[in-house]
């Protein structure tokens, strides 16, 4: 079956511009996560959605970052007024349920470069 898909695969933008990154989770998965992967820094948790519950936004690094999930499916991560330090790979993952032993399936990521 189809895995997690993300678009665009690559995004180059200028400092100060806004960007939107999209994630399509696996159909039927109720939990959705966003992580950021910077060179040599591992994966940094950003935000987590579970069903209709309020999202866990505790990992968002600043108020320039926001995310939404419409209809319990597709999610969009928005970065406003991008900075060079925002350059990273943004990974989306989904799991069938939020319990910890459920595998998180990752998409291929969106590579963001801020010039």
């Amino acid at each position, binding site marked *: 079956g189809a895995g*997690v898909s993300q678009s665009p695969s690559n995004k180059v933008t200028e400092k100060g511009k806004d960007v939107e990154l999209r994630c399509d989770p696996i159909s039927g998965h109720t*939990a959705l*996560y966003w*992580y950021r992967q910077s060179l*040599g*820094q*591992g*994966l*940094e*948790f950003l935000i*987590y959605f*579970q069903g209709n519950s309020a999202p*866990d936004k505790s*990992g968002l690094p600043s108020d320039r970052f926001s995310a939404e999930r419409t209809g319990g499916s597709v999610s969009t991560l928005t970065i406003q007024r991008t900075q060079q330090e925002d350059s990273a790979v943004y*990974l989306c*993952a989904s*799991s069938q349920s*939020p*319990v*910890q*032993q*459920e*595998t*998180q*399936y*990752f*998409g*291929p*990521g969106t590579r963001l470069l801020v010039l």
Partner: protein
Amino acid sequence: QQQVKQSPQSLIVQKGGIPIINCAYENTAFDYFPWYQQFPGKGPALLIAIRPDVSEKKEGRFTISFNKSAKQFSLHIMDSQPGDSATYFCAASPGSTLGRLYFGRGTQLTVWP
């Protein structure tokens, strides 16, 4: 603050060797420890995971060893192959925070033929 510390940062072994990647944590609330494998240009994929009620788990050539008292766990790859060349991440999750994973910084493994 890095909640899961992973070492080494990079590792080079010859085919057939047994690379070992180590991780340590401080948060005693962690009770789920997965390892993810990532190939260039791809997202991470779950390789193997362990709960602290067992000290070792083996799946194929991959083994996790877990030392609860030392708060350490490690990944061993038996009979390593060039196709195992990838970046490996350890992670941990507390039962109280459903779903969220805390990742180590990754180990880039190269297996020479």
